[in-house]
């Protein structure tokens, strides 16, 4: 007979399960943690390699040379930006037209659910300006996008200027097989979202925008530039997008290949790669880089303008220029050449990037861990849930067996009725729904009654509802368990993540600063969900928080 259909063997198995349940669970938990942390150890990782055949091994000689002209253009752009008090639309349109692009503008407006600290008003209005470089001989079926944000103040002037210089250089070449769109967007992510929605004729976030007059075909890849100073010492690659989505690993491989060819210092998560993987510092460095990537993916917001492209299956990455006052400097011409090389390689693509991995972790730019390697760690943690459930099921069936044996027993414990089980479940979920809906809806009422701004009102309402959910049970015997439960609640987990994140980026904060950061994280999460459809806040409010509340109720079951 089979292992599970033979009653004797089954009894032996279930006996083993119930006897050794806790030790097995502990072992699984520790094994999962150790497996995951061990992934950063270099011999367990694989070296990155270019998977796409079309972007093969041959490099072209880059000939971009107008880096200095780009820097002077940056000053001009800055002046016009100050004069216009926002985006200098006419100047940008004229600049792109003089470079031979087909220029179009798009205006958009969005009503925020509550005014953010940065915006301080409900309504956000802006204009996107984009120019299309038509491929001289190809049909207009595919496109590449290069985008630079127009930010207030002193930031990103050089990015826009480099964009214009590249446009001028690209216009003189005849080997383009795809159209290239140069996009300058206002208000960062909101502008990008408006442009993408207009381009793909969708409306998923309730944005109002004017329809796009010019279009270029299906977008194969996108690059976002962020350069804020004339002198750059390293280039940082940002991959994490909305909801933790990542572009194809081939895009990161492409960036790394050109960094090596042109001798530019390249970082990921702001950390430079080290060579000493067998020392403790080397390992912790790699582990820190990997954990940063995990945390950034977990918080669900898009860490660069590229993040919103990923939703439309457009592989996109952000390249950020950093000035860290090192000795070795890179000039704008080299950065232009790097971008030229990348775009030229992307030009050779025949299909969308699909040969390499979509789910991966990068302990450094030259090493990766694919999902096949890190998923078993989560699998081990999930096995604990399964084992616990089996254990509970076996125990639920056991009193019946004991009665059958004929030994006189006390009367069977009355099985709980459906209503007694359903009530806490429903109440927990309703509290979750309240946590999801009420903070934004009740902000006016809160502002009337309390002397706080709208943002603070939203955040404080959320915390209030959260704490109110704890007040349901009425048994105070297990105080120690209560404290442990509260310390492991979702809100505290977020607080710990904030502190860990600050530690990992080597900017540790004090408790009060951490608390302020925590509040802003909550408000940002709610805002991201409303503006771009990030799923972290609904997940926490509608699924994780009710589960934790039910656990809390069970703990204090009367």
């Amino acid at each position, binding site marked *: 007979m089979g292992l599970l259909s033979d009653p004797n063997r089954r009894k032996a198995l279930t006996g083993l399960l119930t006897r050794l349940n806790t030790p097995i669970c502990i072992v699984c938990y520790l094994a999962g943690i150790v497996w995951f942390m061990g992934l950063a150890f270099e011999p367990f990782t694989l070296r990155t390699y270019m998977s796409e*055949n*079309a972007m*093969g091994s*041959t*490099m*072209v*000689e880059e000939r971009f040379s107008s880096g200095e002209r780009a820097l002077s253009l940056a000053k001009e752009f800055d002046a016009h930006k100050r004069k216009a008090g926002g985006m200098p639309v006419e100047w940008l349109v004229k600049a792109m037209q003089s470079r031979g692009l087909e220029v179009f503008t798009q205006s958009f407006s969005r009503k925020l659910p509550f005014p953010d600290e940065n915006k301080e008003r409900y309504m956000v209005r802006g204009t996107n300006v984009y120019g299309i470089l038509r*491929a001289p*001989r*190809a049909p207009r079926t595919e496109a590449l996008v290069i985008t630079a944000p127009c930010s207030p103040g002193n930031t990103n002037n050089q990015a826009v200027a480099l964009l214009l210089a590249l446009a001028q250089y690209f216009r003189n*070449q*005849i*080997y*383009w*097989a795809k159209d290239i769109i140069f996009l300058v967007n206002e208000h960062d992510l909101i502008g990008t979202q408006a442009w993408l929605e207009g381009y793909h004729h969708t409306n998923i976030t309730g944005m109002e925008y004017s329809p796009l007059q010019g279009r270029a075909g299906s977008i194969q890849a996108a690059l976002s530039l962020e350069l804020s100073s004339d002198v750059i010492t390293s280039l940082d690659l940002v991959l994490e997008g909305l909801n933790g989505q990542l572009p194809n690993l081939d895009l990161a491989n492409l960036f790394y290949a050109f960094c090596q060819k042109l001798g530019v210092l390249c970082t990921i998560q702001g950390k430079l790669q080290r060579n000493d993987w067998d020392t403790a510092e080397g390992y912790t460095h790699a582990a820190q880089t990997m954990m940063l990537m995990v945390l950034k993916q977990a918080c669900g917001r898009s860490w660069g303008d590229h993040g919103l492209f990923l939703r439309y299956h457009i592989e996109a990455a952000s390249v950020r220029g950093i000035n860290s006052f090192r000795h070795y400097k890179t000039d704008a011409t080299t950065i232009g050449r790097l971008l030229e090389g990348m775009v*030229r390689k992307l*030009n*050779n693509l*025949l299909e969308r990037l699909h040969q390499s991995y979509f789910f991966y972790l990068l302990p450094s730019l030259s090493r990766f861990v694919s999902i096949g390697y890190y998923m078993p760690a989560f699998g081990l943690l999930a096995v604990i849930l399964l084992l616990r459930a089996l254990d509970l099921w076996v125990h639920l069936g056991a009193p019946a067996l004991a009665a059958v044996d004929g030994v006189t027993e006390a009367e069977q414990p009355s099985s709980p009725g459906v209503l007694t089980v359903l009530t806490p479940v429903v109440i927990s979920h309703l509290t979750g729904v309240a946590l999801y809906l009420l903070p934004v809806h009740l902000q006016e009422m809160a502002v009337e009654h309390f002397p706080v701004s709208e943002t603070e009102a939203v955040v404080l309402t959320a915390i209030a509802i959260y704490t109110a959910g704890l007040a349901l049970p009425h048994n105070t015997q297990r105080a120690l368990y209560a404290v442990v439960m509260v310390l492991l609640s979702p809100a505290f987990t977020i607080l710990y993540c904030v502190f860990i994140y600050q530690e990992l980026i080597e900017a540790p904060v004090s408790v009060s600063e951490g608390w302020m950061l925590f509040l802003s994280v909550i408000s940002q999460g709610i805002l991201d969900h409303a503006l771009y459809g990030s799923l972290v806040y609904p997940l926490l409010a509608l699924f994780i928080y009710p589960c934790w509340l039910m656990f809390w109720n069970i703990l204090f079951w009367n």
Partner: protein
Amino acid sequence: MNYCNLITIFAFINLLVSIPHGYSNYVETKAGQFFSSGHTNNWAVLVCTSRFWFNYRHVANTLSVYRSVKRLGIPDSHIVLMLADDMACNYRNPKPATVFSHKNMELNVYGDDVEVDYRGYEVTVENFLRVLTGRLPPSTPRSKRLLSDDRSNILIYLTGHGGNGFLKFQDSEEISNMELADAFEQMWQKRRYNELLFIIDTCQGASMYERFYSPNLMALASSQVGEDSLSHQPDLGIGVHLMDKYTFYLLEFLEEVHPASQANMNDLFKVCPQSQCVSTPGHRTDLFQRDPGSVLITDFFGSVRKVEITKDTINLTSPVEPPIKRSGSSDIQIESLTYVDQLPVAEIIHQKPKQKDWHPPDGFILGLWTLILLVFFQTYGIKHLKHIF
């Protein structure tokens, strides 16, 4: 008169008479040699099987062989050129309308007068085999047909991505070495070639000629089984590899050959040794009748017309001499092959009655006899057997 004078005059008259006779003898032997070499016309089938911009080098390979073959005299009407993709007009080509074979763009093998017979998606395994065997629909134009006969020498050049025993066509199908061998056997049986030279430049190319079994085939490959053929130089302006190593050195070798050169196959076997090519080129000559040292390069790569101008009439009385046998080996028996009789005329005319073979009696008849016997014995009993015997 002097006897010496007489003898001299006599000798002189003899000489005068015999010179034209000697000369006509010389011309007759020359004419005899004319028809003793195997072929009268040359064909070339040049195939590039890969698509996409990063396979630029395969198109450049094929075009450089096309260029040499055309330069040495084979006209476009006798060349079937199959290119699976268009590199010269590809959007990514920074020098449109050109295909270069040397870096720094020294040699444009696309030229001004290239004639591609099968282009793009027409290059399929089916079309290739139909071209070789001649089984094309009647509407196929002449430029797409291989109209060779039994006195044609054919050069077949294949390049692309291949493996152990197959060649990949167009990223979607393959031709195996067995199919190729069978196609060549069909060609032999239909008398579509006199001699055939097969050159292949792919990874593990030697596997493609392992299975040949038809006579008069010589084969060359750029690498052995288990080896990869490597590409030669990238061009930094165009951004791709321009040629494969084997064909690059083959092109350099062929650039030295002119229509009157006496270079033979042994020189061709020496092209691109392992020191230059990294892979080991291979060749196969066991199915070939003649000694490779006596086979000229221009027998396959060029179309050299044998022309002798004479004002005399020639009597061709002696029969055609057979081709020079290879010394030592040659166990290959060529039985005279004839077509199967489509219509057995002899039998129809003479109408002899056919002798039927004797068959044992049919089952029905046997059963009937058994039944009759049973009935008889049942009715009359066994003891009446004596009435029968």
